[in-house]
C-alpha cells in the first residue's frame, strides 16, 4: 500500500510540474508579456523599466523558477482587467462553480445507474432500445446548444424555470454562515436544474451505456447465477450482488468525470450567466486577460490532479488487488 501511495504521489508531483511548465510556456508564447502590463502609449523607456521590474528580462529558467516559487506562495500575478490578484478573483467565484459541477456530477452518476440497470435487465426490448438511442443522442448534443434550447423552450417558452440567476449556498457556508447557506437551498434549486443538466447530459449518457455493458457482463457471471439459483428475489440479485460489482467502472471514472464536467462550465456558465469561474474565463478570454485565464486553468488542473489522487487512493484502499500490487 505504501509503495503504491508514494508512487502515486510522485506521479502527481510530476504532473503538477508539467502543468506549471505548460502554463508558463503558454504565457511566453504570447510574445513579450511586458506589453500586457503597460499602457499602449508607454514610451520605450517605460516599457524597458516595466520589463526589468517584472523580471521579464531575465533568462527563461530564472523566470520559470520565480513563477513556480510565486505560485507556491499563492501569488498568481495580477489580473489585467480587475487590477487585483488573479487568485482572489478566481477563488471568489469558485464556490458557485463547485455547486454547479457537484450537482451535475450527482445527475451524471446517480441518474445513469438506474437507466443502465433498466436497459441491461430488459436487454433487446424496447425499453433498452429507447434508453440506448437516447444515450447515443445525448452524447452527440453540444452542451452549449442544449443550454440554448432549454433557455428557449423550457425557460422562455414554457416559463417553467428561470433562465439565469444564482442563489449562493456554498459561499455562505464557507464563510461560516452554515444556516444561511442551508436555508438558501430551496431557492437555489430552480436556478441549478437547467445548467447542471446541460453540463451533465454527455456524462449521463456515457455512464448509462457504461453501466449497462458492465451490468450485462456481471449478470452473466457465476455468482449471479448462484444467487438466482438459491432462489433470491431478482431485485435483491440486482441490488446486492450485480450492481455492487457493475458500478465500479463508473466509480473509477469519478475523478476524470469531475475534470470533464469542469471543462464544460466555461461554455455553460456563459450561457446561463452563472457567476462562476467558467464565465470569468470567458470574459477574460474576450479581454485577453491572460494572467486570469492562466490562473483559472492552473487552479482547475490542481483540483483535477488532487481529486484524481484522492479517488485512486480511496479505490486502492477499497480494492485489495491494487493495494497489494
Amino acid at each position, binding site marked *: 500500500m505504501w509503495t503504491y501511495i508514494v508512487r502515486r504521489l510522485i*506521479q502527481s508531483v*510530476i*504532473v503538477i510540474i*508539467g*502543468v506549471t511548465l*505548460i*502554463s508558463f510556456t*503558454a*504565457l511566453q*508564447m*504570447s510574445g513579450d508579456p511586458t506589453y500586457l502590463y503597460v499602457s499602449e502609449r508607454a514610451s520605450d523607456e517605460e516599457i524597458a523599466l516595466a520589463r526589468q521590474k517584472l523580471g521579464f528580462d531575465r533568462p527563461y529558467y530564472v523566470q520559470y523558477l520565480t513563477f513556480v516559487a510565486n505560485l507556491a506562495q499563492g501569488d498568481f500575478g495580477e489580473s489585467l482587467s480587475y487590477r487585483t490578484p488573479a487568485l482572489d478573483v478566481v477563488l471568489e467565484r469558485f464556490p458557485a462553480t463547485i455547486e454547479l459541477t457537484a450537482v451535475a456530477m450527482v445527475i451524471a452518476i446517480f441518474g445513469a445507474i438506474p437507466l443502465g440497470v433498466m436497459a441491461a435487465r430488459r436487454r*433487446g426490448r424496447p425499453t433498452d432500445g429507447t434508453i440506448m438511442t437516447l444515450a*447515443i*443522442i445525448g*452524447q*452527440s*448534443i*453540444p*452542451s*452549449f*446548444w442544449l443550454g*440554448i*434550447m432549454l*433557455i*428557449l423552450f423550457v425557460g*422562455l417558452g414554457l416559463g417553467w424555470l428561470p433562465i439565469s440567476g444564482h442563489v449562493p449556498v456554498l459561499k455562505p457556508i464557507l464563510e461560516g454562515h452554515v444556516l444561511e447557506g442551508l436555508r438558501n437551498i430551496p431557492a437555489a434549486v430552480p436556478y441549478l436544474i437547467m445548467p447542471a443538466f446541460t453540463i451533465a447530459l454527455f456524462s449521463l449518457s456515457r455512464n448509462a*451505456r457504461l453501466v*449497462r*455493458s458492465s451490468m*450485462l457482463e456481471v449478470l452473466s457471471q457465476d455468482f449471479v447465477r448462484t444467487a438466482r439459483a438459491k432462489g433470491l428475489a431478482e431485485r435483491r440479485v440486482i441490488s446486492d450482488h450485480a450492481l455492487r460489482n457493475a458500478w465500479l467502472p463508473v466509480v473509477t471514472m469519478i475523478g476524470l468525470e469531475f*475534470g*470533464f464536467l*469542469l*471543462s*464544460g462550465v*466555461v*461554455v455553460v456558465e*456563459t*450561457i446561463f450567466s452563472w457567476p462562476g469561474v467558467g464565465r470569468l*474565463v*470567458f470574459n477574460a*478570454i*474576450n479581454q*485577453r486577460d*491572460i494572467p486570469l*485565464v*492562466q490562473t*483559472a*486553468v492552473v487552479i*482547475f*488542473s490542481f483540483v*483535477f*490532479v488532487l481529486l*484524481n489522487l484522492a479517488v485512486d487512493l480511496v479505490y486502492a484502499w477499497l480494492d485489495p488487488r491494487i493495494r497489494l500490487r
Partner: protein
Amino acid sequence: MSSQDIEEDEVDGFAEDAGPPRREWRRAWRSMVRGGWPIFALLILVGVTFAAAFGPELAPKDPNRQNIIARLKEPLTENRAGKVEYVLGTDALGRDVLSRLIYGARISLVVGLTAVFIGGAIGIVLGMVAGYFGGWIDDVIMRLADIQLAFPFILLAIMFLVVLGPGVVNLVLILGIGQWVTYARIARGQTISQREKDYVEAARALGASTSSILFRTILPNILAPLTVIASFNVASVILAEAALSFLGLGVPPTVPTWGGMLAESRDQLLAGRWWLATFPGVAIMLTVLSFNILGDWLRDFLDPRLGENG
C-alpha cells in the same frame, strides 16, 4: 451466412495489406443495412461531405452577403411576389442561414478530420515506438501521456488559443495534439501483443528495417481498433471545435461555422428568434451523432466479441 463464412471473411480481411477485398465490402454493406441506423448515419455524412465539397455551388446565396432590409426573416417567409427566398430565414445582418449552414459544414469536417489525422499520426507513431522498444522510451512517452491526461483538455486548448490567437491552423494543431494520447495507448498495447508473433519474427529474419517492421508489417494488423477510435474521435473533435468557435476561439468570424452561428444567435435569444439557434445545433448534432453511430457499428462489425450487443 454460416459461421464458417464469417471466419473466412475475417481472415481475408485482416491478413492482407492490400485492403479488404470486394467480398468484405459486401459483408459490411449487408451488416449496415441490417442495422438500419448505420445507413441513416452514412446518408447524413454523405450529405455533409457533399455540402462541404460543393458548398459554393449548392448554397443559394453568398453566406457573407449582408442585406439590412431582409434581416431576421423567419424561415419560409414569403416575399411580396409570394416566393420563399430564405428557406431557413436570415440572421441579424440579413445573411442567409441556409447558405451559412452549408458553408459551415466545410470547417467542421475539415477541422474534425485533419485534427484526428494529426492526432492519430502522432499517437500511432509514438505508441508503436513505445510498445516496440519498451524500456525508458516507453516510460518517457507514457509519462507524457499521463501529464496530458491530467489537464482538462478544453481548458488547455482555451489557454493556448487565447495566447496564440484564433485561426484554422492553430485550431487544428491544438485539437490534433489533444488527441494523440488515446491513439498512443491503444497502438502501444496492440504493438506489444504483436511484436513477438511469427510474422514479425519472419520479417525481422528477412532483414527488414525497424521502420519497415513497424509501419509495413505491424501497422496494417493493428489498424482495426484504431479506426474505431478514430470514428468516435471525429465526433468529439467536432464538438470541441464547435465549443471553441462558440467561445470566439475558432476560425475568424468572416468564415461561417456552426459553432460561430450559435454564438451569434445568443444575442437574439431573448427576442425568441429560435431559428438562428436551432438549425446550426441540429447540424452539429446530426453530424456528431452519425460519427458515433458509425463508430458503434464499426466496432461491432470488426470485432463482434467487443460489441455491447454481442
